[in-house]
């Protein structure tokens, strides 16, 4: 058998490929890669007492401080995890268990699967009673609906969880209002900021003052490595840990800490925060070109999410193309060298009708014609040009293929 590393890069992607799926993952920042590689050469378990251990611990804690600054929290509040999904699991399950015997979980229906599936698991195995809150036409949770849901029995609400910005349609959510509302009843709030982090400012101190208990973030969405994220957990919040062991990180998340990944994460976090004011404006301008260009090329296309540029993520454009399967469009654009997304796909790679659009009250047919275009640090005007050039032919052909595979033969 050949020694493995001879073919790490299969290079299946054409050299002129245009990557417009930055919400899935975005290229690692070169500085984060070099810091990662360098930090990996340092020997030492941060829990060890000797000088190598202390050296590693110093690197780890400096990284934690940088990540804490990027979200406006105290360093002690940053709990590194294996990624966004683990952070969300820790927050949702950990808060639910810590709040026993309360049983109610309030969450919008358009959350990421990391939240949806965690809550459903709690429902099926731990006696949670779930109330899925509807989203409005723009994909936003209605604070008044949440208020009524809490008021029905405030004493039995274990937690409220919601996205800071919807990962599919990009709609920014009223997290401050939600946090304040829940805090008035002493209910902990978890904010899933995985898609918002690095794209809009996250101020944990302010959120925490108004009542939020925990915020989840992930490194690979901002140019850091896959495999590390963080739960920013208020010093006043209590969660029951998912992982038991050596008691690292406030006993909340045991396991030897990944110093090199934390260092790389910190490099990406500091760059993202420093660049945010300029990048936010630049990406919003590119996004607005995408939106205007799609509308000009395909007048039937429906923009999903908030049409107000201030109400959505700067790098997100999301459309429904009537009469098309989103996966047909994705395939045709892929063949044309443009990588976009239909939203979420399950583990087998089967495109699913968007549950976000379903939560917004759209039909399943509409939910199948969705396409998400997301921009990031490496996106350029030329990328937008290439996408807009490829779209008309792809749309025309996808429309011909139509929804044929949904109608029974006979």
């Amino acid at each position, binding site marked *: 058998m050949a020694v493995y590393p001879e073919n790490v890069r*299969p290079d*299946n992607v054409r050299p002129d490929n245009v990557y417009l799926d930055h919400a899935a993952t975005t290229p690692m920042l070169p500085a984060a890669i070099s810091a990662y590689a360098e930090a990996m050469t340092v020997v030492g378990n941060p829990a060890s007492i000797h000088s190598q251990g202390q050296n590693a611990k110093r690197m780890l804690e400096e990284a934690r401080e940088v990540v804490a600054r990027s979200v406006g929290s105290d360093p002690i509040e940053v709990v590194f995890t294996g990624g966004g999904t683990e952070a969300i699991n820790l927050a949702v399950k950990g808060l639910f268990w810590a709040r026993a015997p309360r049983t109610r979980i309030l969450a919008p229906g358009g959350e990421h699967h990391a939240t949806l599936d965690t809550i459903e698991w709690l429902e099926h195995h731990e006696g949670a009673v779930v109330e899925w809150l509807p989203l409005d036409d723009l994909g936003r949770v209605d604070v008044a609906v949440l208020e009524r849901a809490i008021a029905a029995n405030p004493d039995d609400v274990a937690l409220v969880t919601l996205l800071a910005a919807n990962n599919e349609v990009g709609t920014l959510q009223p997290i401050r209002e939600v946090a304040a509302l829940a805090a008035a009843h002493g209910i902990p709030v978890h904010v899933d900021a995985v898609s918002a982090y690095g794209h809009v400012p996250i101020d944990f101190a302010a959120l925490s003052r108004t009542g939020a208990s925990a915020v989840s973030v992930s490194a690979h969405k901002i140019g850091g490595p896959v495999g590390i994220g963080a739960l920013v957990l208020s010093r006043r919040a209590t969660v029951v840990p998912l992982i038991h062991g050596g008691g690292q990180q406030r006993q909340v998340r045991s396991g030897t800490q990944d110093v090199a990944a934390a260092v790389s994460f910190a490099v990406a976090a500091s760059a993202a925060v420093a660049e945010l004011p300029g990048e936010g404006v630049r990406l919003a301008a590119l996004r607005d070109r995408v939106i205007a260009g799609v509308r000009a090329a395909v007048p039937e296309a429906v923009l999903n999410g908030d049409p107000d540029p201030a109400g959505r993520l700067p790098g997100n454009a999301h459309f429904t193309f009537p009469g098309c399967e989103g*996966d*047909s469009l994705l*395939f*045709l654009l*892929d*063949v044309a060298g443009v990588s976009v997304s239909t939203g979420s*796909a399950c*583990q*087998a*790679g*089967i*495109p699913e009708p968007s549950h976000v659009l379903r939560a917004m009250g759209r039909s399943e047919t509409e939910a199948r014609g969705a396409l998400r275009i997301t921009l990031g640090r490496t996106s350029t005007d030329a990328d937008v040009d290439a996408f807009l050039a490829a779209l008309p032919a792809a749309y025309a*052909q*996808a429309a*011909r*293929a*139509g929804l*044929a*595979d*949904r*109608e*029974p*033969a006979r």
Partner: protein
Amino acid sequence: MSGGVDSAVAAARAVEAGHEVVGVHLALSRMPGTLRTGSRGCCTIEDSMDAQRAANIIGIPYYVWDFSERFKLDVVDDFIAEYAAGRTPNPCMRCNERIKFAALLEKAVALGFDAVCTGHYASILTDADGNRELHRASAWAKDQSYVLGVLTTEQLAHSMFPLGATPSKAEVRAEAAERGFSVANKPDSYDICFIPDGDTRGWLAERVAPATGDILDRDGAKLGEHDGAVAFTVGQRKGLQIGTPAADGKPRFVLEVRPITNTVVVGPKEALAIREIAGSTFTWCGVAPANPEVAFDCDVQIRAHADPEPAVAQVVPVSGSTTGETELVITPNEPLTGVAPGQTAVVYVGTRVLGQCTIDRTVSAVPVAAMSSAAADA
């Protein structure tokens, strides 16, 4: 690409023949199992991953296309409805007819592809005039031309079967191993992919409400009761639970299932012999015969693994039809056993698939004095 060895090798051969190939895995269930168990597998996530790894090695793009809704409507629900109507359907055939060479092909053509290429063991040959014909595979033991008998001329024009000329499955496995496919030794799949444990009766019983009905003999005399006609198939011997033995002491077999009256007709083994089968839903595969109204010699095959039997076939008007309906009537030279309405009769001329019909009615070779015939009324 199902994730099996055949479609992986077929894809590799298509690439080597110079075609531009994209691997497509059909998602036929919204709730796929995670891991393959035993020989059943074309729907699990492990199978999807196997298919993707083969596509990686070949160096072709790979996508999963979701046909779960159409599969449920056209194959699974049809399977249940056919059983409920007392017929014995072949879901693999229905899948070829309505999914692989219909929904999938239509979508593929609309998206710019020319053909659907599969790992079926069958050959496409071209006659002197350039017409495409479907023929049996060289590997007789693996031949799958029967389940492709439903293909129409148009569908055949957009189909490719690169394994047709392979002498044996062993060669395909050897080739897969040589190409480095992890699925080279993956077990063949059998049975019905959407019935995970292979218990067709139990699966159907959960989906078709059983109702107690009568078990009759061929003269119409009641011999006992059953718990639901759906549980019976023509030719079945076991599980009849008739208290009284037959007058001649010989075992009795299910001859007919009549869903409308919820009755099961039983009789001696000899009565299972069928001298005529007919179906009004028939298609020609490739160029249709010039004069099918004139009886012609052929071979008929009535199950995927049955032998072809010499027969005479003819298209005739359906008796009593006022709308000009016709049916394909097939008369085997020797009576056939194991024939039930709902099965597909595929008509061959030599190795060529000429066409097929879904069997609507059969005529027993052994007449009953009290009944004009044993033709199924289903």
